[in-house]
């Protein structure tokens, strides 16, 4: 099946005609790292030329990108759009608008909605709704098991035919190795990557944060790292035995990185993602008992954070996913133990990584760009590239512009952001997704841009 069907294009978006002059292009895969003028015609990249060599084109808006950077737009393989069922937290429209504001040109939504995306009818209605409401192309994963209960497989083949990019019970682990094994066997029929939220509930129990010195101090029940890593090791062994394609979601700790590297070295077809918050924050922040810092998997130790950064650099972990998880204010304004797990992340992903990792010299900008654009490829989607003839998937960023996260509110319907109040550099100015302008910051509005 073609990814174009599955990845439902943002509806009705007018193909852009736009000339961006003088921005510094950085596309590590295309070997681009220099100032260029970029001409977009009919939503496709028409020309890349040396600055100021292109004459104005009739009917094409111009944008001065001098002093700014132009990257291939980002892809987020892991967001919660809360639709259907929890539209008070997020909708297809608000979630994908937040994605566009964060520089993303594609997002992939998780199926732990209400009802769960475990039936063709639910998936079809979502795909239809996204066609009308989504600001950027949006793909969907379907559940591995009915109701995310970990017992009975969904109609995986029918769901694939209806456009599911892959399968996950995200939010919950597939506790039974026997059930997961059947899903991996069934993958031979229907295809589709099986993505896994790894957690052994017997070890994580009633835990609400990373188990360590901070949880001991606060008297909060801990989630040990090995509740994740032992499941990564188990499921990597299953993947290898069944020669299945498995993706590990939101990896958070050094032990998981080691298990993933070992499995891959042994020949397992496995991949992994990690999140901006696990790459930049640690459990020390939980000392505040601020529920913004409560997520699953939890923020872990500095040692874990360093291991994740290194794994990203070496490619053991190949992509960054936000795990954008909106919750309403009244749900999060409760004592830490009672608060739901999750942080929003689409609008702060790049600025947080740039500010906390690139600026201090812990990770190269090129690596961040590569890992932030790789998340769709694992589900069979094309990687955004800056090259003539390609659909325009671009993000214009001002690396020197800073802002206080959340000071002007969020585009997302929810405000539970773990970076709230931080001064972040690397502000997104413009996002072109699948050839259409999906986001333009106010400063650009004097330009004759049509922003949907």
């Amino acid at each position, binding site marked *: 099946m073609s990814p174009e069907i599955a990845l439902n294009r943002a509806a009705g978006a007018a193909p852009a005609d736009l000339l961006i002059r003088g921005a510094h292009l950085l596309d590590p895969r295309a070997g681009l790292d220099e100032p260029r003028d970029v001409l977009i015609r009919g939503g496709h990249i028409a020309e890349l030329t040396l600055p100021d060599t292109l004459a104005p084109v009739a009917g094409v808006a111009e944008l001065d990108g001098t002093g700014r950077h132009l990257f291939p737009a980002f892809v987020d393989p892991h967001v919660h759009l809360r639709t259907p069922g929890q539209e008070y937290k997020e909708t297809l429209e608000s979630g994908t608008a937040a994605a566009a504001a964060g520089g993303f040109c594609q997002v992939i939504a998780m199926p732990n909605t209400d009802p769960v995306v475990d039936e063709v009818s639910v998936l079809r209605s979502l795909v239809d709704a996204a066609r009308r409401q989504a600001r950027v192309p949006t793909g969907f994963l379907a559940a591995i098991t009915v109701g995310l209960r970990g017992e009975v497989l969904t109609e995986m083949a029918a769901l694939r035919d209806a456009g599911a990019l892959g399968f996950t019970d995200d939010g919950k682990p597939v506790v039974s190795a026997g059930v997961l094994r059947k899903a991996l066997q069934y993958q031979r029929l229907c295809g589709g990557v099986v993505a896994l939220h790894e957690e052994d509930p017997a070890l994580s129990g009633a835990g609400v944060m990373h188990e360590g010195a901070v949880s001991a101090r606060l008297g*909060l029940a801990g989630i040990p790292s090995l509740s994740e890593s032992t499941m990564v090791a188990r499921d990597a062994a299953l993947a290898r035995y069944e020669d299945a394609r498995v993706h590990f979601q939101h990896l958070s700790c050094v032990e998981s990185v080691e298990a993933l590297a070992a499995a891959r070295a042994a020949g397992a077809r496995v991949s992994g993602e990690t999140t901006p918050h696990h790459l930049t924050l640690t459990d020390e922040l939980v000392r505040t008992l601020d529920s913004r810092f409560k997520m699953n998997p939890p923020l872990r130790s500095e040692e874990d954070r360093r291991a994740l950064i290194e794994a990203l650099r070496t490619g053991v972990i190949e992509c960054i996913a936000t795990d954008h998880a909106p919750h309403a204010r009244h749900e999060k304004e409760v004592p830490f133990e009672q608060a739901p797990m999750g942080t929003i992340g689409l609008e702060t992903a790049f600025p947080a990584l740039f500010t906390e990792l690139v600026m201090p010299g812990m990770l190269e900008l090129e690596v961040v760009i590569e890992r932030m654009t790789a998340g769709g490829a694992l589900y069979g989607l094309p990687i955004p590239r800056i090259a003539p003839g390609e659909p325009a998937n671009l993000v214009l960023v001002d690396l020197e512009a800073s802002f206080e996260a959340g000071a002007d509110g969020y585009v997302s319907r929810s405000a539970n952001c773990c970076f709230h109040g931080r001064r972040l550099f690397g502000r997104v100015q413009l996002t072109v997704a699948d050839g259409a302008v999906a986001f333009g910051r106010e400063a650009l509005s004097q330009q004759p841009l049509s922003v949907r």
Partner: protein
Amino acid sequence: MNHLISIEDLDRAAIERILDRAESFAEIAGREIKKVPALRGRTVVNLFYESSTRTSSSFELAAKRLSADVVSVRSTGSSVEKGESLRDTVQTLSAYEPAAIVIRSPHAGAARLLAGWTDASVVNAGDGKHEHPTQALLDVFTLRRRLGRLDGASIWIVGDVLHSRVARSNILAFQRMGAKVTVCGPPTLLPRGIEALGCAATPTLERLGEADVVYVLRMQRERMQEAFIPSLREYAERYQIGVGRLRTGQLLMHPGPVNRGVELSADAIDSPVSLIGEQVRAGVAVRMAVLYELLVGAAAPAVAA
């Protein structure tokens, strides 16, 4: 100081100032009229989301002896039972313009959240398994009276440390006063990483003789269902403190309520080395001093009663 959320809010000088004031309040308790006008016309709200006997009654008595108007709200029989959120409850109670809100909650961080929502001074009367700072203060008060000073004393905290807010506040408070703390209990009930608080940890009572003070924690029977220990019988056999396990000169403490025959034997509870009764008596004076410190201020002269 506006709030008392954690022992971390107090340095040694602040602890000593509060305890000195508690001494003068304790003296008032010996009078026929046990009341001073310090908080006359001011309101103290006690908000208890968990059952409590000694903490709630001693806070109530403390506020009354300072002449405050006292409102006590318990989760049962109140709008909390009808599903009102903590924030909404606090906003409602704030309409009475209380000078202080005393909160007991089953959840860590509840007192700190409250402090962000109200103009009143907030006193943490126990939040989840996190902290119980006034218990720690009254324990230090009791020990200071007996020992003069805690500097260099070896204090063993024995039992279910994992689920104990008292243990966390007391480790911090005892250390702040110069004592050396060792926690001891079944390995399943000692939190991983507890040594980061500066205490030693051991799974056996073998070296209990080193202790000057043996502080025994309540063993919560409900923990049995979660299988943290194989049986109360085995627990009692290994960890119960009886007179036979104490050497001469050791002092015995317990925050109450006691499970007789589980963590403590009956002979120990009633023995002369037990400070349990003194701990309870200290509760009112120390909580008076805490309310006074927050509402009248550190700068005020020692109580002119």
